[in-house]
């Protein structure tokens, strides 16, 4: 083998170590993806990660595990897995994922042969994919991009080991001497940067080709003909369930993570302070607001108990000019879907079990989604008044209902909508409320509008806003809201909303508490609305006695604090262009371009490409036509000296070019032979010339240094032989000239230094 191209290579032990390392990294990457999944397996994931990391740093560890332990591991694993499935039923996904983690752990505790390595790759791939499918997280994109080359490299090394003559051997001695840093330095030392560059180019090619396949692969809907397992989130963030205890909403107000993103339709003015309704809480008892069972049950569900709004339903497809709002609700927030007001249609990307409450005009999924939920709302109206249903219109004739649950003869709460007039009895609650209401109304009977104005003044005067609150006394001293009203303590949005609700009910105006999101920020990078958990809010809706529920936000500092103003469409809003907003914009791009890529998007993309292509061709055609027209016009002009000269020049140039191209080889050889006569050599092979010069230098050096055949080094002999081959031989067996010349120069310089 020629010295010129000799390269250092990894031995069998080193390849095995590299395979072990890659397997460990692959497992760690897959465990990383599980961190975004709610599978209640934190300790197991941590343990597996620690074991794998230890295995990476000290590969000799598996050899120290007693064989009895490994033999007992298999039946134990089977038992544990079976028990987990049994105890977790009917939920399948969490025990399935735990099973896979255990298998990965088992594979990491023992030296692997080829079959086991392939099993490990499959297990890790399963984890990565299932996590991505269930969470739809942006980090999945990075994880799969890191996972893919790692898996490819591992397969490559496995393939190299397979062809080795020691294929089935596990070099335990080599693993016991392993030092990670030394090994990595060794890899860095021997790696060929050109190969790294080539591999990188190949990987970029893989990404480009896979992107192309992703875009062109035909899409059609099967609508989960085979039901797919869904991972349900165990609980929602507090404040967005149908029962709210004081402090629930406040718990998430300090949370800065984005909970909701909204893409607005084009041409719609962004509301100044949008209120996104999620949950309506009508009943108040035991110091908690909740959605009463009558509000939940009556006329709420569709006849079939489940309402699905499918995308691509024929009737809706015909209406192509709908204003579409696209919502991206993060997983684990709530099963209630925030909207601004009434709308025409709600569409989902996949089949969903939706519960539509036509009475309260709220919508929810059956379970809390663990991953991002996408839905589109068409023709949503920005409303500060929600029209009351015919059922609610009889509220105008109802009186407040005092419910004292401490009494043995407690009056039943009643049915919705009467629950919107329920007041807590006992403990002096009613007396306190009466006093405060009298103070507000001054004994007069006020309309809902007037009462709201005065009540808000009262609340703002007596209480300030603070996330914390300090209400003295206990339940025996009255309801917590009543006690707060009696005090001058500051409070948060729940207290203000709850208090206003009770005061309005006392005044005879049906009122209910609403929770959802308010405000938000505009992402200036990708132009969408962002709502963080700290934008969670509670406000009220008061029945105006004329058939509408009017939005009232009693919390001080809110922009909408009176009925007269209501929601106004305005262009003023907070634009977020911080680095957090930039990072979040990447996420929305991920959702828009990748996760939500569907048949419609494909068709749009195709038509866009078609349009671009058509426009380009049309433009080119018109340019060519214009040019031809100009040429024809020029030719039609009368002949003059300048024109004749130009024509002749053009003709001569064209003729010369044609002759040059047609007879180029003949011309060159003629020139070469003429040049040779004159003493120039144009046609000699430059490689042979250069090799000849090096041969002369080598011979001179050999004379100078008295190098004979006996004392000639192998390196010198090999390079000299390569030079002679380059100078004299023909055919395919010539070594690579560049490398031979490089090595020859290096050797000559080295010899020159020795001479000096």
């Amino acid at each position: 083998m020629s010295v010129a191209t000799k390269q250092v290579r990894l031995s069998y032990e080193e390849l095995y170590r590299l395979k072990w390392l890659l397997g460990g990294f692959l497992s760690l990457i897959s465990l990383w993806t599980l961190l975004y999944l709610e599978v209640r397996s934190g300790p197991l994931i941590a343990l597996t990660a620690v074991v794998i990391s230890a295995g990476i740093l000290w590969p000799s560890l598996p050899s120290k595990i007693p064989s009895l332990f490994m033999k007992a591991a298999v039946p134990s694993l089977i038992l544990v897995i079976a028990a987990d499935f049994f105890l977790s039923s009917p939920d399948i996904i969490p025990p399935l994922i735990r099973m896979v983690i255990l298998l990965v752990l088992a594979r990491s505790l023992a030296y692997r042969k080829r079959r086991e390595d392939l099993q490990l790759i499959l297990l890790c791939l399963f984890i990565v994919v299932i996590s991505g499918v269930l969470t739809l997280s942006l980090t999945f994109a990075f994880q799969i991009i890191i996972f893919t080359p790692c898996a490819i490299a591992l397969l490559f090394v496995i393939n190299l080991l397979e062809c080795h003559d020691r294929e089935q051997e596990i070099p335990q001695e080599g693993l016991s001497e392993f030092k990670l840093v030394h090994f990595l330095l060794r890899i860095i030392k021997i790696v060929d940067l050109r190969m790294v560059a080539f591999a990188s180019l190949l990987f970029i090619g893989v990404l480009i080709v896979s992107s192309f396949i992703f875009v062109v692969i035909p899409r059609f809907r099967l609508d989960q003909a085979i039901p797919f397992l869904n991972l349900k989130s165990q609980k929602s963030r507090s404040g967005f369930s149908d029962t709210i205890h004081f402090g629930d909403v406040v718990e998430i107000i300090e949370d800065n993570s984005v909970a909701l993103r909204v893409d607005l339709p084009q041409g719609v003015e962004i509301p100044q302070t949008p209120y996104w309704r999620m949950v309506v809480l009508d009943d108040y008892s035991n110091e908690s607001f909740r959605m009463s069972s009558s509000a939940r049950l009556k006329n709420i569900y569709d006849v079939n108990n489940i309402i699905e709004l499918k995308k691509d339903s024929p009737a809706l497809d015909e209406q192509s000019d709908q204003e579409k709002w696209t919502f991206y609700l993060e997983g684990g927030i709530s099963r209630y879907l925030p909207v601004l007001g009434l709308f025409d249609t709600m569409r989902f990307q996949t089949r969903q079990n939706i519960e539509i409450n036509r009475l309260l005009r709220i919508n929810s999924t059956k379970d809390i989604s663990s991953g991002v939920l996408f839905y589109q709302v068409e023709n949503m109206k920005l409303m500060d008044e929600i029209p009351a249903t015919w059922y609610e219109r009889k509220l105008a004739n109802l009186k407040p209902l005092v419910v004292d649950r401490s009494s043995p003869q407690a009056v039943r709460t009643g049915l919705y909508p009467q629950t919107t007039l329920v007041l807590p009895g006992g403990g002096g609650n009613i007396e306190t409320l009466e006093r405060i209401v009298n103070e507000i109304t001054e004994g007069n009977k006020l309309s809902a509008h007037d009462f709201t104005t005065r009540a808000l003044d009262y609340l703002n005067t007596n209480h300030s806003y603070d996330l914390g609150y300090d209400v003295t006394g206990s339940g025996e001293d009255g309801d917590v809201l009543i006690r707060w009203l009696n005090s001058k303590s500051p409070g948060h949005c729940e207290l203000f909303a709850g208090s206003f609700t009770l005061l309005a009910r006392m005044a005879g105006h049906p009122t209910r508490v609403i929770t959802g999101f308010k405000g938000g920020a505009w992402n200036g990078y990708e132009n969408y609305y962002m709502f963080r958990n700290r934008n969670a809010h509670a406000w009220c809706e008061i029945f105006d006695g004329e058939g509408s529920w009017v939005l009232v936000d009693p919390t001080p500092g809110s922009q909408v604090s009176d009925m007269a103003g209501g929601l106004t469409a305005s262009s003023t809003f907070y634009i977020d262009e911080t680095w957090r907003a930039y990072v979040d914009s990447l996420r929305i791009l991920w959702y828009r371009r990748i996760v939500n890529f569907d048949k419609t998007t494909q068709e749009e993309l195709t038509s866009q490409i078609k349009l671009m292509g058509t426009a380009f061709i049309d433009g080119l055609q018109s340019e060519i036509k214009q040019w031809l027209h100009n040429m024809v016009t020029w030719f039609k002009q009368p002949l003059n000296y300048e024109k004749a000269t130009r024509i002749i020049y053009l003709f001569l140039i064209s003729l010369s070019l044609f002759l040059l191209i047609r007879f180029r080889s003949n011309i060159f050889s003629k020139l070469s032979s003429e040049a040779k006569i004159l003493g120039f050599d144009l046609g000699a092979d430059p490689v042979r010339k250069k090799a000849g010069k090096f041969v002369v230098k080598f011979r001179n050096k050999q004379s100078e240094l008295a190098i004979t055949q006996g004392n000639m080094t192998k390196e010198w002999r090999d390079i000299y032989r390569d030079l002679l081959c380059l100078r004299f031989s023909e055919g395919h067996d010539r070594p690579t000239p560049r490398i031979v010349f490089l090595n020859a120069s290096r050797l000559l310089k080295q010899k020159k230094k020795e001479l000096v």
Partner: protein
Amino acid sequence: MAIETPSLKPKSLEWADPGFFTNQSRARNFFRILKQLVLPPEGHKTLPTPVGIVLIALSLGIGAAAYNTSSNILFMTLSLLLSSLLLSGILAWLNFKGTQWRLNLEPHFRVGEVTPIRIELSNHKKLLPTYSLWFRVKASVSRESKRVYLHDRLDAGTTRELNWILELKNRGTEIIEVAGLETKFPFGFLRKVIDGGISREVIVWPRRIDYNFSPKKGKRGHQPGNTLRKPGSGPELINLRTYKVGDPQRLVHWKASARQQRIMVRQMSVENKDAYLIFLETPLSKWQPGEQFEKLCAFAGSLAEDLYMQNRLWGTAINDEAVLPIKRINDLHYFLEKLAKLQPLEQYTPVNDIMGATIITFTPDNGNLVKAHVGGNEAGSA
């Protein structure tokens, strides 16, 4: 100062390659390669390995799940799997590209002797090494085959010999064939097979055996003074041959070298007057196919070689064929090749014009013994 001048390699016509490129234009080669990637040409096969089948099943499963759930994450995974499969095909093609191989066989094969079958593999690429491939080499007549692996990486611009050590058991004609070049590079999903394209017929000489040969001293044959000339250091020029390391420079024939573009040297002769003629008659009535006949061939071959080395072999004759004078080593080799193919003859007319005191003949004896006679007298046995 003498510098070793390496021998210039003659142009080889024996190299086989994957046949990716022909002497057509680049454009034609490009389209032909594209077509080959999709529709492998004859002799080229692409078969999925068990791992590949799992990958295909996995892709189908993920594809089905993707369509069922309309999940773009699954579509993305499917796209990555498919593009990895495509990458695997391209890298496997690149692995073969630029490789050439040829079969280097020993000039002579002999029964019972271990002979290396050498496959010279060359990587003519400029940058990329060649990995993880193997040859299926077969000895068709003996029905032996082996996978000869390239265990390590073959760097760009280098050549390596892969060996298969073969011991042939039967004399005669053997066909050594490089039946196929295979690889599972790079990921083990697909096994690419390329027709090896090389098949060589070799003659397997009879084995060397121990024997005893002690002819009686006495009168010579009635053709005294048989002279034998063989290569040596005499004055007479008998041949021109290519230069071998160690040949003195004074023997170089410069004109012939200039004409033939390689270094040629003169081969001189030396005389010897004490020589035998080995005469083999193999009628079926005398010799039956079997162990004894094989021993006859082995005995005759071994004796011929030893006599030649001692400069005492004048010629050979087999049955009714013309006498073959043994002047050079090639003549001896020719005789051995004829011995390799020798079989008992059903119809044989004895020849009477080969006689003399220096003629060695053979007869079968009891118990698979073979006896040698010189001038009718027993001179040895095996």
